[in-house]
Each structure stands twice: as structure tokens, then as C-alpha cells.
């Protein structure tokens, strides 16, 4: 029996590890940041040299720019965003987002979407960089009364190509209210007498996407590179590769935040993405060949979204950004659940109670089913002695035994709610709820009662998971005799393993699970009493 116990423990551990892995994707230490950069090849005139920009930096720069210049910074700030621009490549050093008051009022630091703390390569991996080794100079900064803030940067390549890069917060006419949107305009001007060609020009977000402290552990595994093609309703997820840029938007996201480009159609040919163990994730808009004739210029204008990923909020923007919110395989159910949850939140004023109410409603819907199940189980138990007696009496006569059994069960008929099928149909509902509660930005910073201040974070005192474990223990006691000692020992282990597993789950999710368990146990207890 000792061997069996060992086996049972190993198997259950394996099963639970699988389960754990399924719900909580493997985490990766964010320490090893990638060394990446814009690998832009410059071929001057007739494509003589195709050396990467980095190796021949000196050739690219004006003589005066070779002497090291201290990088300069510019902060653009309104009520939604605080962006720190860096002169190296006119890149983005920090992209802080100002969230709802319910979050910022708790004294939390602003979330920075740039993973700067994690990248070892410094300015090379700052997002939105163009020629990271090139020092840009800010030539204009303006803050208008209408709320528009602009910052214009310039630099010149040795070939005579001038790059003008402008960042804008707020709308040109100041009509649009302050938002997580900003705009970027890049102008290439050929000041030389020869045509200039940039090979494999890329502009994009790199170094992964930053997030709030509590999410850091899982961030690498939940970071996705994606794009939304307008005619369909589904986002396309990328690993590493090159795609034709036929999208409304392309971007990078994690559980609660999204950074997206909304380019004008046909400006940059394709999207280049990469994410690996060493690369936290990058998404570029790119073109194979950027050619500027002498005296001419080329302009690229992009709208940028860098902010939270709340479904309701993104949907109101009407740009299809809400499709970045992952509701799992049964997305339509998840959206429906979120809608109902939002409605209940309005009535109760609290997401915690909304979760409890919605769970209760679902249990109520399925109540007849479970009642029937317990009734037939109880009835069948009562018949067991009679069946055994019949089996003993007609041991030799199988035909007679069948007849007798049939007459015993003559009242049983086909049951439209019987069998495992109804239960299988309920699994999508559970899964939709689970994914919705796990990923909803709406829950961020929302309290329940007493000690639960944020339903998207784990319970700070682990009360809910421990109560849940206790409930499981009770449930096992209630279901009665176990039979063999192996099973009894495994049973002792299960609630402990489950509690450990749920310790770091968002408390909203644990609340859902706990409510379900308590209701299930109560119904079981009540029915067992009633039909005993």
C-alpha cells in the first residue's frame, strides 16, 4: 500500500502541475533582457555599401556629432500620459500612463510601458527609435492653450538625409479630450544631390511592454504581438516573422496594457515581429526600401495608443482596439459575462458583490439539474440492497436477472437532462468566466469588502484561498466514506495543494471559485438530507 500512496501522490502532483501550468503560464525571469536595435541598412547612392548602420556609425554621422554628447530628455505630459523622450534616436525612454483615480490614489507608481529597467542595452532598445546611435536635437517644443503639446527633433545622416521626428499629445485643433492617444510624424528630407535609399527601414516598439509591479512575474509569458485586420473580428497573433501590413492597427500587449500603432493605409509595407526567450517582444512597421529623391521628402504619420486595456473603454474609441482583450476560446460568452458583470456593478456599486450575484444566478439556473441528480443518486442507493439480493438469487440465470432488474427500474425513463452532456456544455461558461475574471482591466483597483482592496490582485492576507481550502476539506468529509486508505491520504493532500495553487490568483477569481464551492456544498448538503 505504501507504494500506492507514493504513486497517488506523484500522479496527483503531476496532474496539478499540469493544471497549474494551464492556468498560470510559466514565468520567466525578466532579468535577461535582449540586445536589440533597429537594424537599418543604409545604402548610399547606388546601393554600394549595405553594411548595418551600427558597424559604420562613424560614417553616418556629421563630424561634429561624433564627439560624445550628453543625451537630452524632454517630458511631454497631460492628464493621461507622461512621455519621456530621449535624444538618442529621438526615442521614447519612458511611457508612463496615468490610470484611473481609483488606482493612482493608492499611491502606486505610474506604470511605465517602456521596460527600461529590464533592458541592458540602454538606448538601443528604447521604443520608437530611429538610428539609436544618432543624437537628435530638439528644435521645437510647444504647449498650446488648446492642450496640444508638440516636440520636434532633428538629425542628419552623413549621406545628407535629414530626419525630422515630431511627437504630439492631444489633437491638432484641441477638440479631442486628453486621451492615451498620441501622434508621431517622421519626415525624411534628402538634402543631397543624389537619391538616398534606406534598406529595411523599421520603426516600432521594442523591449517588451512594461506593466504594474504585481504583474511582472508573468509579464513575459502573457506579452503578445498582435494586429487587427479590419474586415474580421479577430486579432492575429504573431511569433516572429514578417507580415504584410494590411491592418487597422498593430501592437504589443500584456494582461492589462496595450501599445498600438494606427498607421495610415499603405505607408509602411509590412509588420516585422520577434519574441523569444531572450527577446521580450518587439513589433515594427517596416519597409524594404525607403527611397528619397534629391530635394524631395517622405512623410510617415502614425497614431499611437499606449494605455490600459479595458474592454468597455477601448470599445468606445471605435477603432477596433477592444479586440486586443482576450476573452479566451469562448469569447462571446466572456463578453456577455463582462456586460452582465458591469450591469450588476452599477446596481450594487461593487464588483465583488457583482461576481457573487452572477455566480449565484448561474447556480440557480442549474439548480433543478443538481437536485434531480442527488434525488436519483439517493433513490439508487436505496435500491442497492434489492439489486444485490436479485444478483445473488439469479446468479445462474442472466436472462431472468435482467428481467427482474428491468421491473425494478420500470419507473426510470430517458431524461433530457441526464448524462454528462449537460455538464460538458457548462464547461465553456466556466472557462469564459475564468478568463474574463483573470484578464479584465475593469477589476483593477476595485475593492470588495474589508481587506480586499483590489480584486485583480491576490488576497493580501490569503483569507479567501484558505477559506476555499477549508471548504474543500469540508466537502470531502461530507461526501462520506472513502474506502481504502490510499484514497483517504490523497484526500488529505488535495485541499492543501489547491490552497497553495490559489494563493496568488486574483482575489476576484478566488471569490468566484469560493462562491461556487459554497453553493455546491450547500446544495449537496441540503439534497442529501432531503432525500436520505
Amino acid at each position, binding site marked *: 500500500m505504501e507504494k500506492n500512496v507514493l504513486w*497517488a501522490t506523484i500522479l496527483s502532483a503531476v496532474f496539478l502541475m499540469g493544471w497549474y501550468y494551464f492556468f498560470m503560464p510559466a514565468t520567466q525571469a525578466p532579468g535577461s533582457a535582449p540586445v536589440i536595435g533597429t537594424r537599418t541598412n543604409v545604402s548610399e547612392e547606388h546601393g554600394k555599401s549595405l553594411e548595418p548602420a551600427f558597424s559604420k556609425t562613424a560614417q553616418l554621422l556629421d563630424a561634429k556629432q561624433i564627439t560624445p554628447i550628453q543625451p537630452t530628455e524632454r517630458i511631454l505630459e497631460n492628464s493621461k500620459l507622461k512621455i519621456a523622450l530621449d535624444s538618442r534616436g529621438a526615442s521614447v525612454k519612458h511611457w508612463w500612463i496615468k490610470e484611473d483615480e481609483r488606482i493612482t490614489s493608492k499611491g502606486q507608481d505610474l506604470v511605465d510601458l517602456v521596460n527600461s529597467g529590464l533592458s541592458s542595452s540602454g538606448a538601443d532598445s528604447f521604443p520608437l527609435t530611429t538610428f539609436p546611435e544618432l543624437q537628435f536635437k530638439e528644435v521645437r517644443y510647444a504647449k498650446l492653450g488648446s492642450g496640444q503639446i508638440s516636440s520636434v527633433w532633428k538629425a542628419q545622416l552623413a549621406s545628407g538625409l535629414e530626419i525630422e521626428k515630431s511627437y504630439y499629445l492631444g489633437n491638432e485643433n484641441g477638440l479631442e479630450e486628453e486621451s492615451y492617444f498620441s501622434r508621431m510624424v517622421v519626415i525624411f528630407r534628402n538634402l543631397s544631390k543624389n537619391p538616398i535609399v534606406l534598406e529595411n527601414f523599421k520603426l516600432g516598439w521594442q523591449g517588451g511592454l512594461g506593466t504594474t509591479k504585481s504583474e511582472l512575474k508573468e509579464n513575459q509569458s502573457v506579452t503578445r504581438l498582435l494586429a487587427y485586420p479590419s474586415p474580421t473580428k479577430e486579432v492575429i497573433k504573431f511569433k516572429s516573422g514578417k507580415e504584410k501590413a494590411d491592418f487597422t492597427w498593430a501592437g504589443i500587449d500584456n494582461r492589462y496594457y496595450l501599445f498600438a500603432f494606427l498607421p495610415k493605409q499603405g505607408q509602411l509595407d509590412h509588420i516585422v515581429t520577434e519574441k523569444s526567450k531572450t527577446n521580450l517582444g518587439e513589433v515594427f512597421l517596416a519597409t524594404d526600401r525607403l527611397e528619397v529623391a534629391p530635394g524631395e521628402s517622405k512623410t510617415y504619420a502614425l497614431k499611437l495608443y499606449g494605455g490600459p486595456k479595458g474592454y468597455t473603454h477601448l470599445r468606445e474609441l471605435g477603432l477596433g482596439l477592444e479586440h486586443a482583450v482576450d476573452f479566451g476560446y469562448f469569447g462571446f460568452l466572456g463578453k456577455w459575462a463582462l456586460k452582465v458583470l458591469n450591469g450588476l456593478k452599477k446596481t450594487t456599486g461593487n464588483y465583488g458583490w457583482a461576481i457573487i450575484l452572477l455566480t449565484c444566478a448561474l447556480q440557480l439556473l442549474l439548480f433543478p439539474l443538481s437536485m434531480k441528480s442527488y434525488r436519483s443518486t439517493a433513490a439508487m442507493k436505496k435500491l442497492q440492497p434489492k439489486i444485490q439480493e436479485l444478483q445473488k438469487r439469479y446468479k445462474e440465470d442472466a436472462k431472468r436477472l435482467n428481467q427482474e432488474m428491468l421491473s425494478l427500474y420500470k419507473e*426510470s425513463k430517458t431524461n433530457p437532462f*441526464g*448524462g454528462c452532456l449537460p455538464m460538458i456544455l457548462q464547461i465553456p461558461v*466556466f472557462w469564459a468566466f475564468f478568463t474574463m475574471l483573470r484578464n479584465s482591466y475593469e477589476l483593477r483597483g476595485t475593492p470588495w469588502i474589508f481587506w480586499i482592496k483590489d480584486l485583480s490582485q491576490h488576497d493580501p492576507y490569503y483569507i479567501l484561498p484558505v477559506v476555499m481550502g477549508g471548504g*474543500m476539506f469540508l466537502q470531502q468529509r461530507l461526501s462520506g466514506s472513502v474506502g*481504502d486508505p490510499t484514497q483517504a491520504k*490523497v484526500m488529505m493532500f488535495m485541499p492543501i495543494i489547491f490552497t497553495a495553487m490559489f494563493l496568488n490568483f486574483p482575489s476576484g477569481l478566488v471569490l468566484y471559485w469560493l462562491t461556487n464551492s459554497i453553493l*455546491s456544498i450547500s446544495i449537496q448538503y441540503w439534497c442529501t438530507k432531503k432525500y436520505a
Partner: protein
Amino acid sequence: MKKTVVIFIKVYRVLWPLLQSGMGLKSNCIFVPSCSRYMEEAISQMGVVKGSWIGLKRLARCHPFTSSGSQGRM
């Protein structure tokens, strides 16, 4: 092998009710004994291959159009 599979079924029997109640899934079992006990017995009597097959056949019969009752005999 046989023992391993049987233990696995036993673990499932302990684990599943906990998951089921937390997930809020409601079932209406129509067979006595339960499918897991049935399969366990089948496997310990007839071996893993034949026993599993018989157990799976029992599971396949678990749908709304089967009349309920004891199907303890194999």
C-alpha cells in the same frame, strides 16, 4: 501498469468533485455505480486494454437518451 491506471482513476475520483464544485458545473449522473468505479472494476478484472474499452463504452452511453439505471454487469 494496471495498478497505475487504477490509482489514477482513484485520484481522479477525489479530485474531480473539488474541481466540479469550484467550476460551478452541475452533473446528473444516470448510472450506478459511477463510471469511474465501473471502469476501475473493469480494469482490475480484465486488464488495462479491455477494461478501459468497456469503461469507455459505458461513458459513451452516458447521454440524455439512455434510460437510467444500474448497469453494474459487464
